[in-house]
Every structure is written in structure tokens, then in C-alpha cells.
């Protein structure tokens, strides 16, 4: 539980840092938490270009890098100097999505818990 809460706070910290660098007037953080995973949605009122959204998606759509996530990923949300880096978040989540919404941008981060039972999950089409 402590590990999960710490991870969530780190992710919120890093993404929050990233958004605040864009100087928004509004930022909304929505956490949907369940026993075996969570979904974090962050909304802001910054209208970003296609290029910027593409760069954000590229940072969040990293391939699995356990060697970086387990060690350097711990820096997420704790950096006060320098720019925020979404790739620190991208290594640690299972899915990240960036979408342009009316008047701003929406970031979705999804992570299933360790030992997640895919067979018992309700994800559509998860059987294999």
C-alpha cells in the first residue's frame, strides 16, 4: 500500500511539475483507484500544438525499461531543479495517453498492480 501511494504521489508530482511549467490557469487531477490498479487523469487549460502533444505521447509511450524504472524512475516528482521529464513517468506506467480536449489537454496514465491477474480482469479482450 505504501509503495503504491508513493508511486502515485511521484507520478502526480512529475506530471504536475510538467504542466505547471506551461503556466496554466487551471489544472485538475482525477484519480480512479481500485484494488488492482489505478487510472490518473490530469487536465489543464493549455492548448498545445500537435508537435508538443506528439512529444508528450512519445515520452509516455516508452517501451518497457525496468532497468531505468527501478532505479532512475525514483527521481520522478522529486526534482526541483531543471525541467520536468515525462519519460520518468513513461517508464513506470502501463499506458499513457495524451489528448487535446476543448480548451486544453488531457493526460491519462494507467497502471495495473503487481501480480495483476489478467484472466480475472474485466479488460475487454484481455484473454490470450
Amino acid at each position, binding site marked *: 500500500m505504501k509503495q503504491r501511494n508513493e508511486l502515485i504521489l511521484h507520478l502526480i508530482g512529475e506530471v504536475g511539475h510538467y504542466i505547471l511549467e506551461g503556466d496554466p490557469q487551471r489544472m485538475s487531477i482525477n484519480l480512479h483507484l481500485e484494488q488492482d490498479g489505478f487510472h490518473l487523469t490530469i487536465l489543464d487549460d493549455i492548448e498545445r500544438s500537435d508537435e508538443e502533444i506528439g512529444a508528450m505521447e512519445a515520452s509516455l509511450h516508452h517501451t518497457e525499461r525496468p*532497468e531505468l524504472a*527501478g*532505479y532512475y524512475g*525514483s527521481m520522478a516528482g522529486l*526534482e526541483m531543479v*531543471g525541467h520536468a521529464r515525462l519519460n520518468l513517468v513513461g517508464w513506470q506506467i*502501463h499506458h499513457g495517453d495524451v*489528448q487535446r480536449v476543448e480548451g486544453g489537454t488531457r493526460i491519462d496514465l494507467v497502471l495495473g498492480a503487481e501480480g495483476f491477474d489478467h484472466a480475472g480482469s474485466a479488460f475487454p479482450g484481455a484473454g490470450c
Partner: protein
Amino acid sequence: MNYARNTFFSPRTIKKIDTAITYRYCRASPFFRRPVLTTQEKKLYHLTWAILVAIALAGFLSQGVTQTLRGVWALQLHAARLINDYTSVAGAGATLVNAVLVAAIGLGLVGLTGTRVSGPTISAVYTMFGFGLFGKTPINSLPIILGVFIAARLAGKKFNEYILIALFGTALAPIVSMVAVELIPAGALSWTGAVVTGIVVGMILPPTAIVMLRFHQGYNLYNIGLTSGFLGLFAASLVAAGGVTLPADMIWNVDPPLLLQLLIPVLSVVLLGAGLFGTGLSEAEVEQREPGRVVQEGRAAQEARAVQPLRDFLRINRLSGRLPSDFMEMVSMRGTLVNMGVLGLGSWLYVLAVGAPLNGPVLGGILTIVGFGGFGKHPANCLPVMAGILAATLLFGLSLTAPGAILAILFGTTLAPLAGDFGVLVGFVAGFLHLVMVSRSGGWHSGISLYNNGFAGGLTATLLAAFMEWYQTGRDTAKAAEER
């Protein structure tokens, strides 16, 4: 979690999550444990093995098989604290074979654990190879790695999450040799005690290394240097408390043979050649990374990629290099190999220009720079730091070829991200302070940590990162007050 009934998911997002979860959790999938290496990564993996085998063969040829094997065995039983130049202890050939064995452990573990062959792993392998010339041996490194492995199991993590800590963590390998050779009289008990000590140290490394990152916030590339120096302080204090005085002897080869002098230029040319003339990503891999790019660019753009490595090298030089900057992922593998080759040749030319010997420790310094050419270092962020160290060396009247000064200017590039992020002036100041710190820090841990420059660099980076945080916050507050 039932995402289908979740109101804040669009159908498009649900489809993407479905794909991601299926990919990650289907045990039947061949991708479950091992990442899919690109063809470039596979080639780099094989190239690195080929380089190691060639160096080992050169070692055997230069010294003869019997003499080389005897020399390698002698190194396993030799003290390893700073500075023990193995090229003086056992000869160049045996030292190269020892270094190859140490690096082979690293590269083998990368392959066995299915870790991506990329900037961080390649930098770890080159660092292990470099320090195999003056401190690391297979026998004193393996207990540390085993300790990290046990720590990973205890924390419920896979070993590949801690593999970089395990590989870089062999900085504390001298503690194993110290217990076996210097503290406990020879015998089975001494090696048992040494191995147990190494395992315990390895188990402490991961939690300490993770905390140390927070001090300098990624501005010291050798984070394990700060970690192992910190742990080395405790080890040296324990030894002193036990009434043992560790000698501060230095073995430094002043007349290295031609084989050692040619190692870096040959390696650099191979890396440059692989970068400039090697194959790029396949069209399928480009398409996988950046959908639509192959179709959009067309054939002309594909052909223009012949000069792409040089462009990528220039792109790399615009990055800060702050940990963790995997240049192979962020820019390209070919551009990164060019960067590694340029850094190797540049460092080698500097050593030649000042007339310092290309012995084990100096080669170790250059090889570490070459390795970190994939993970944070490039000429633009290294040069300001090196200039600061050079200025301090001249100002304090030290010889440019003195062991401390030449090693500081090579290993001091651990502070390169400060120049990359905050500019030339901060990089210069960092280099200047580094020489002052590193001159004293080795004695604090009695040379137990091989990454003494990483230790001193970590302290300098922590100071400057704290200062820059204060300065930036103060500047922003003043700016906001002016605007009001």
C-alpha cells in the same frame, strides 16, 4: 478494474489500454519477459562481444598464454584499493584479459536478464572494463553483484530492475579484496569473510543509491560513485576502529607498452566506423517508433540518412545529459556511436598532448568517458568541466601529468550535465571545485571506492544543484514581484 464502464475513458483509450495490457500480461506471449531488441541493438550487443574477444586475444598474444593466465590469477589475489595499476602488477596482457572477464560478466548479465542494449547498459559495461584495469576482478566483483541480486529478491523486484546498480556497484569490489588480502590472514576464512562482506555491501547498495540520486538530482553521472564513497566512509571508519591502518600505497605504471597506447584509438575508430557506416533502423522499426514517417519521407529522405549520424551527433551535443539521458533512445544509436568515438579520440589526444602515461587508470578514465558517451556525456557538456579542472590544476601549481590531475580531468566529466543544463560558467565552476574536492576525498574512504571522482563529483553536484535551485526560485520570485 472494469474500464468498460468507466465514464472518463473514450473508446479509443479503452482500445489502447486493451492492447497495452494484453502485451504486458499475457504469459503465453514471447514478449512477456524479454523486450524486443531492435536489429541495431542486437548488432551492438554482438559488436561489443567481438570487441571484448579481440582485446582478450591481443592480451594473450602480447604476453603468451601461460604468463597471461598466471598474471590474471595473481590479480585475483592482489589488493584492489585505489590506486593499484594492474598493468604494473601483472603486465598489460593479463590486465586486459582480466578487464575483459569483468566486462564479460556485465555484458553476459545484460543478455541473460533480457535488458535492453542501450546507453545505460553499454556505459556500465565500458565502465566495468575500464576499472578491470585497476581494481575490479571477477572474484571481487561477483559477491557485490550477488548481494544486489539478493536485495532485489528481498524487495520483491526482478533483478533487471537493479541491474545497473549491480554492474556499477562493483565500484566497491576492493572491499572484498581488502578483507581477503589485507585484513584477515590468508586462508579459507579470509575469502569466506570477504565474500560475505561483499554480499552484505551489495545488499545495502540499492536503497542507498536510490536515495543518493535525490541529493544531486541527476547532475552527477556516477551516482554509484557517490553511493560507494558514502558506504566507503563507514567501511574505512570500521577498519580504523578495529585498529588497522590501511597503507596508502600507489602503483602507477609510467611506461605502458604500445598495446595499451593503441587501445583507445583503435576502439574509437571501430565505434566511429560502426556509427557512420552501420545500418540504421529498418523501415519496420522506424514505422513502429514513428508511425507514418517512412511513407511521409519517401525514398529521398531514406537516402539522406547516410549523413544522419553526423546530424544526430550534433543533436546529442544540444542535450543536457542529465541522468538518465539514454542518447541511443533519445536520438539514435548511430549518432551515439559517433559521439562515443569522438569522445574517445579527443580524450586520448589530450592525454598524449600533456604527456601522461596511457596506463591502466588513465585508460579506465577514457573508457568510462567512451561508455558514458551513450549516457550523458558529449563534447559540448564535457569541455567546460574539463576547462575548470585544467584551470584549477594550473592555478594550484599541480603537474598536468600527476595521477590526481589526469584522473580528475577524465573522470571529472561526471559533472557534465551541470554544464549541459546551466551553461558553460556553471560547468567551469563545477570542474574547478571538483579538483579541490577529489584531491581530499580519496583519503576519507581509504581508496575503498574505486569511483572516487564520482564521490567527489556527487558532493560538488549536490552543492551546485542546491545553489541553482535557490537561485532559480529567488529569481522567479523577484520577477513575479516586478510584474506585480
